[in-house]
């Protein structure tokens, strides 16, 4: 996606739609801008996990109390997992 590969753009953001919605002859193919809700959860979990991991690694190295961040991560990750 980040390199604008055509197949990725189409598959993840512009899926093909039922062409009879816009063209009664059904001869042309149509694509529609779309977000799959499950992909939102995926992207948020990836960002959350990566960022919190970096923060926790720093806390460990610097000898800081990691518990508040771990508790927050568990809570937020749980919220996302329930969706």
């Amino acid at each position, binding site marked *: *996606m*980040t390199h604008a590969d055509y197949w990725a*753009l189409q598959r*993840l*953001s*512009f899926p093909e739609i039922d062409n009879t919605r816009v063209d009664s002859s059904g001869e042309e193919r149509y694509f529609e*801008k*779309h*977000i*799959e*809700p*499950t992909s*939102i*959860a995926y*992207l*948020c*979990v*990836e*960002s*959350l996990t*990566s*960022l*919190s*991991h*970096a*923060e926790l*690694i*720093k*806390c*460990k*190295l*610097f*000898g*800081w*109390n990691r518990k*508040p*961040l771990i508790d*927050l*991560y568990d809570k*937020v990750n749980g*919220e*996302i997992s329930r*969706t």
Partner: protein
Amino acid sequence: MNKEDGLKPASALNEYLEISITIWNGCYGIEPIKDSLAYNVLSSFPRPASIKTAYSQGDLFIEAGADYSMALINTLTEPLETVARWACARGAVESAALSVWLFDSKANRRQRVKRSLALRHAGFQEQIKFLNAINKHSDSQKSLERIGEIVRKRTELGFVKIIYYDTCRLLGVATIEFP
């Protein structure tokens, strides 16, 4: 999953960012606590500035990761942006991975400095390409001189090779060496 459910993860991620800022401001300082690994490394390495540079780079990558995460949230609110959100998430993951690489407690002090130097070296190489592309050749010469300084510093610190990071591999933690 309906549309409303789909936006809950964005709300949860936003909650993490907001509360974690409060935690950082309230619980943590700037300096490592005494006798922590970071403290001991800083006080024992012959050139503490090199260790501090590595920490500073790691901090910047955390900030960048948070910034990308905020941008990701923005793409998930109306008007929804279906393409840009992927780039935002990638930026968050890659920035965080580089921070982990620099703050890795399993890395010894020499490895940490080598990683820091490698990042700077690679950064200047990219900068030179950019400056040449916009016809700022005199500035690119300065970047070339900075690379020379890094190589000299590497030699002073007794490193034969420095480690180069490979951002093409997801998480950016795969390493190869170059002379």
